[in-house]
């Protein structure tokens, strides 16, 4: 339980909510997913990401955060490309994009603050 209160733990909770958002939208493809539940999930992911950033700001190891941010950005761009290429549009695409952006922010936060807290 104590790990979840640390910056990497909080980033992990955010990551879990973001992943749940992607799964809940993607599991309806090719139909349009109902957006209420994913919207709540992505808002929770954003909230926990902000808390993780606030808690971990001073602990971020920049030499680890920068390459991780670039790698996560490339990976997320690929997933975004795949969803857009497959014809996902409108609300579902906005939710997926928001969740993927949060994933790209959570990963460097998680990995670059892990060393200072664990």
């Amino acid at each position: 339980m104590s790990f979840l209160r640390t910056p990497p733990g909080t980033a992990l909770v955010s990551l879990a909510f973001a992943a749940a958002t992607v799964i809940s939208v993607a599991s309806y493809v090719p139909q349009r997913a109902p957006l209420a539940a994913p919207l709540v999930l992505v808002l929770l992911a954003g909230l926990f990401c902000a808390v993780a950033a606030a808690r971990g700001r001073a602990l971020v190891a920049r030499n680890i955060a920068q390459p991780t941010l670039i790698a996560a950005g490339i990976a997320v761009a690929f997933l975004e490309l795949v969803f857009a290429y497959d014809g996902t549009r409108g609300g579902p695409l906005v939710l997926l994009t928001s969740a993927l952006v949060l994933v790209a922010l959570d990963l460097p936060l998680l990995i670059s603050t892990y060393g200072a807290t664990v």
Partner: protein
Amino acid sequence: MEAVAQPVPAARPAPLIPYPLLAVPAVALSLLLAAIFSNALWLIDFLHVAGGGMWTGIDLFMGFVIGPVMRRLDPPVRGAVMRRLMPKMMVVMPTLALTTMTAGWQLARKIGAFTASGQIHWLLIASFAIVAVLAMTAFAVLLPANVGVLTELRKEQPDGQRIQKLMARYTACTAVQGVMQIATLIVMTRIASL
């Protein structure tokens, strides 16, 4: 005339991941892009099956073969092995995961698995959940532990206890990964045989 000592600029620390290793994701992701935009079913299938097979195989091999061997090595030898192995793992594993997942998504779309009802639909959702657990354990424990061990080993005086603690977490996590990988194999072979 007295010689004036010039200040020696501090050496830049070597990058965590050697740059030539980045050719691996560059090639894999270029192939993936080519497969997606050319709508080449065979190439997509190949990338999904080959990537998934290597991802699962390396995970199980690391967890059940390399892991136990590493535990029996002397600490300096273990350190030397990890210093060479970890950067490669940090590049290869996320590349395999991304390639497998993206190609798998495209493959499912092309063969109409998303519009299938009944068992295939639920097996697909189960595979999403398994991938989520795999990703969470990888990002929560494996990758940070990798980075932590590598950072520690690059210090002049590595903290052996810290390395041991991180490696204990790493090993425990590989068991979870192993179970999830076997679950993936079951789900994927079930989908393929329906």
